[in-house]
């Protein structure tokens, strides 16, 4: 009787676990299917793309990538996207860590008010702000310029980064800073030599999330750039599709060029991404 009971439970557990795996695997396959399709298609010729429907590539036309990079113009846009991502993330790290350090450690009139203002910006959605931003950039003669885009994107990332860094600095023990102060270190020196190195784990979260956000950004790039030579990949892809509607292998190569760096960054930095998502969840 006992035996039978145990056997019953064991087999029930195996069945449940199998069902759960079937469910999880089918969702995982659905996640990967479009990506595999995209990569396989990017290696085909134009006439094979709608004929050969197997997921195993029979053609390896790496020329498609060369063509997309040069004639498709994606090389230029890839470099643009890289420049924007690196400079925006660099700007955000420096500017937001300085501000966060001041909000956490230094005393000055209006510090609370300023901090609340940054936090309010994080909470209030203003869906029409790009209209006003367009007008503003026109007035400043910064529209259709890389520097205008970079400044706008730094602003987009500031609030959340300040919040994450201030939360970290608040919990950081003060002893090390005190020691540095006694050694005659200036405030800027303490921020640079003591606070920033200690904040590495949070800085990783800030860097990864802002890099993803800038690389994937669309709306501001759309309204700021008229000229394809300044455009980042996301907007250039749309323009390309408008011009070469039917050249699917090149478009798929362009999409792969755009998606691959993000997927690689994600796979290498997933620890920080998962941490960021769960931390961000606590924030809300």
């Amino acid at each position, binding site marked *: 009787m006992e035996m039978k009971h145990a056997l019953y439970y064991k087999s029930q557990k195996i069945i449940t*676990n199998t069902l759960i*795996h079937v469910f*999880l695997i089918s*969702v*995982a396959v*659905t*996640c*990967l299917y*479009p*990506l595999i*399709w995209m990569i396989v*298609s990017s290696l085909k010729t134009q006439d094979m793309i*709608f004929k050969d*429907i197997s997921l195993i590539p029979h053609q390896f036309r790496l020329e498609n990538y060369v063509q997309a990079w040069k004639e498709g113009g994606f090389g230029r846009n890839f470099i643009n996207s890289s420049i924007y991502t690196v400079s925006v993330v660099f700007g955000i790290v420096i*500017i*937001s860590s*300085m*501000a966060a350090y*001041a909000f956490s450690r*230094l005393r*000055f009139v209006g*510090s609370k008010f*300023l901090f609340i*203002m*940054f936090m309010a910006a994080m909470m209030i*959605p*203003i*869906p*029409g*702000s790009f*209209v*006003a931003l367009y*007008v*503003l950039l026109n007035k400043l003669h910064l529209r259709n310029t890389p520097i205008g885009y970079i*400044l*706008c994107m*730094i602003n987009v990332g*500031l609030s959340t980064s300040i919040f994450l860094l201030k939360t970290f600095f608040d919990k950081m023990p003060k002893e090390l800073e005190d020691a540095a102060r006694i050694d005659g270190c200036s405030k*800027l020196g303490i921020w640079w030599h003591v606070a920033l190195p200690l904040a590495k784990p949070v800085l990783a979260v800030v860097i990864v999330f802002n890099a*993803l956000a800038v*690389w*994937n950004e*669309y709306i501001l790039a759309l*309204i700021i750039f008229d000229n394809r030579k300044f455009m980042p990949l996301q907007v250039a*892809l*749309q323009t390309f599709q408008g011009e070469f509607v039917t050249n*699917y292998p090149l*478009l*798929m190569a362009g*999409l792969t060029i*755009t*998606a691959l760096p*993000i*997927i690689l960054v*994600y796979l290498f930095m997933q620890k920080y991404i*998962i941490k960021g*998502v*769960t931390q961000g*969840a606590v924030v*809300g």
Partner: protein
Amino acid sequence: MRIKATLENYTFVLPAVAIFSVFYVIPFIWVFQLGLYDWDGISFTRSFVGLANFQEIFTQDKFWWQSMWNATYITIIALTFQNILAFMLAWACDREIKMKNFYRVIFFIPPVLSEVVVGMAWRFIINDIDGANIINRMLAGIGLGGLAHNWLSDPNTALTTVALVHCWKGFGWGFLIFLAGLQTIPRELYEAARVDGASSWQSFKNITIPLMIPVMVLVAILTVLGTMQVFVLIVSLVGGEFAGHTSVPVLRILASMRGSSRFGYACAQGITFGMILVIISFIQYRFSKKGH
């Protein structure tokens, strides 16, 4: 000496405050100001029209409310289908199960991709009616080949297709947050319930669900805010508003600005939409407070 120290403190926040004032505060004020004007974005003169823009939105602009309804429709599908799926997946991964990490890595790939990439890749698949479009092939396989068609160029199915691709892209967020929430529930609670003879359904209903309510509210708020503002996915998936069938508020604002050069009206639409979003989040928040 004191003055020097104070000035030094201000230099720390100066760059952040300067950028924030120019690129956030000024546009924020201008949106509210421009909303009261009729202006084409270029002319030196603009005419003050008071609340006429808002009056037009609330009384005449049928396309605006259609776009609000479309966004609401996508949001309802995301709130139900996407979040239930995310919760089930998180619950499955919270158990003692093999390859947990593998699933977690895969499920968060769609959220890190851009909407442009996701939209274009899916568009390519869905447009390939009898090739890559696996659903059509399955329909044909079970003898329902008549139902197979291009889901995106049919006005009746375009919006639902958009909603489903949106769910594909977004469920990973909910999944990760739910999983983090589930992992904070102490295992002893389940053990104790089992000793007391509770079935797994009972402990799910009486332990998991009540403890997860705050997390569910959080995911719901994030889903609403994110989904109502969807538009890049629609541009890359459908190509635009598809004669109103797939129009959403942000696309309407963009159309007022770039299509009909009505900058004031676009700002008024933005304010209206922002207010609606704030009110919805506030109601959800209050609702969750009451539930406790």
